[in-house]
């Protein structure tokens, strides 16, 4: 019976102190009865190996003990879908807030430099902290529910009439992730443009001097015009993150954003001369730089055509979408 006592001792290690003695006494009796029954069948006492077989069949001590414990979970099945939904929906906002706080920190710091590695490296920590806080919040809520306040019955207290309207088949709104990504990219674009002159005229000055060409003075004017238009885009895109339910306003802002993009391209096209030969011995000839300028100009022309076509296509979709919405709706799965 030494093996049985060792087994019970192992099970006892995983049981709570207040119910341990009682549970083990009952388990001992049941196992002894089981073994006696086997002995009756065989007509002799069980060997050590046969005793081990009975215990092995009964189960690994940690698992046996776990079955005697109350059901344990951090977030139960009732709240898990809500928890998961909250986690998924809030993730883009965490990204947005992180980028916004980093932009504010960049603007407020005296030395304008961007350590991209540190910026990306800090992000997993932020995400983990957010996940831990949200999980802990839900776990605390579930623990307190029923103990300190009445259980929330999720199956009641909702009105089918408050369900969102059917979305038209065409012109479906971009997802939250898409909208936040748009705003984040606009912020990153501005930070990059603001950091660029600092980098080129600051730590990377030597690199600029070695270039076979240099920028024309027109860039000083165009630069601030571009910053202004990108800032307008950032504001509009941030508003669009929260404005997706007001379809008309959302579409209007989308058009304004696209038009501002067109204006940036037009400004670039009007410059015509983007680069001039550098002052180093290895500088490009005027002819080569002229060719390069023509290529850049052609690139902007193509970009303008694509942007105009896209704007027209989106306008057409908006118009036909609003017509569809007047005729009827189709469920979008």
């Amino acid at each position, binding site marked *: 019976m030494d093996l049985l006592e060792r087994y019970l001792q192992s099970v006892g290690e995983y049981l709570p102190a207040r119910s341990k003695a009682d549970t083990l006494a*009952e388990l001992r009796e049941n196992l002894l*009865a089981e073994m006696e029954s086997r002995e009756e069948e065989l007509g002799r006492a069980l060997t050590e190996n046969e005793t081990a077989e009975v215990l092995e*069949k009964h189960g690994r001590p940690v*698992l046996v003990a776990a079955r*005697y414990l109350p059901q344990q979970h951090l977030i139960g099945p009732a709240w898990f879908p809500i928890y998961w939904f909250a986690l998924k929906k809030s993730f883009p906002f965490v990204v947005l807030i992180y980028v916004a706080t980093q932009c504010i920190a960049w603007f407020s710091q005296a030395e304008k430099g961007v350590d991209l590695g540190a910026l990306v490296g800090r992000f997993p920590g932020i995400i983990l902290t957010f996940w831990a806080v949200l999980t802990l919040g839900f776990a605390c809520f579930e623990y307190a529910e029923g103990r300190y306040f009445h259980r929330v019955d999720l199956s009641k207290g909702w009105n089918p009439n408050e369900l969102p309207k059917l979305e038209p088949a065409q012109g479906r709104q971009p997802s939250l992730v898409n909208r936040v990504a748009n705003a984040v990219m606009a912020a990153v674009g501005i930070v990059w443009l603001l950091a660029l002159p600092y980098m080129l005229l600051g730590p990377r000055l030597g690199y600029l001097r070695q270039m076979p060409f240099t920028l024309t003075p027109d860039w000083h004017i165009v630069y601030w015009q571009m910053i202004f238009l990108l800032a307008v885009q950032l504001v509009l895109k941030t508003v669009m993150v929260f404005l997706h339910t007001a379809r008309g306003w959302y579409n209007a802002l989308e058009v304004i954003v696209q038009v501002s993009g067109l204006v940036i391209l037009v400004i670039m096209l009007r410059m015509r001369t983007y680069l001039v030969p550098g002052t180093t011995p290895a500088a490009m000839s005027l002819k080569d730089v002229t060719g390069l300028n023509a290529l850049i100009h052609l690139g902007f022309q193509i970009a303008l055509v694509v942007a105009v076509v896209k704007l027209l296509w989106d306008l057409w979709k908006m118009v036909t979408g609003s017509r569809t919405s007047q005729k009827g709706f189709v469920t979008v799965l």
Partner: protein
Amino acid sequence: MQPTSQNELSDSLRLELRRGCLILAVLAQLRVEHYGYTLRKALADQGLSIEESTLYPLLRRLETQGLLTSEWREEEKRNKRFYRLSSEGAAVLELLMAEWNGINDSLHRILEEKAVKKER
């Protein structure tokens, strides 16, 4: 579907199907007093075998829920814990049996309909 995953799935569904039935069987069997081992034998004798590691914790849980009562008593010179259905357990058993009979009748009808259609 791969045979292994099909087996795993059918095992998991079988366990799910049995889980509720086991509680009903245990409650019904404990209209007469039993201790853990004899209860398991009684159920097995009627064709419903339950693992010890499933049954004994289940008895504890049902007792915590107030559906069973238990007492330690000496039998054959050994202390054993005897379980019996409580009055609350008896009321719950009645409700569960009504539910079981309803489900059983419906399933019979559904399965018979399927069998008839197959024959055609």
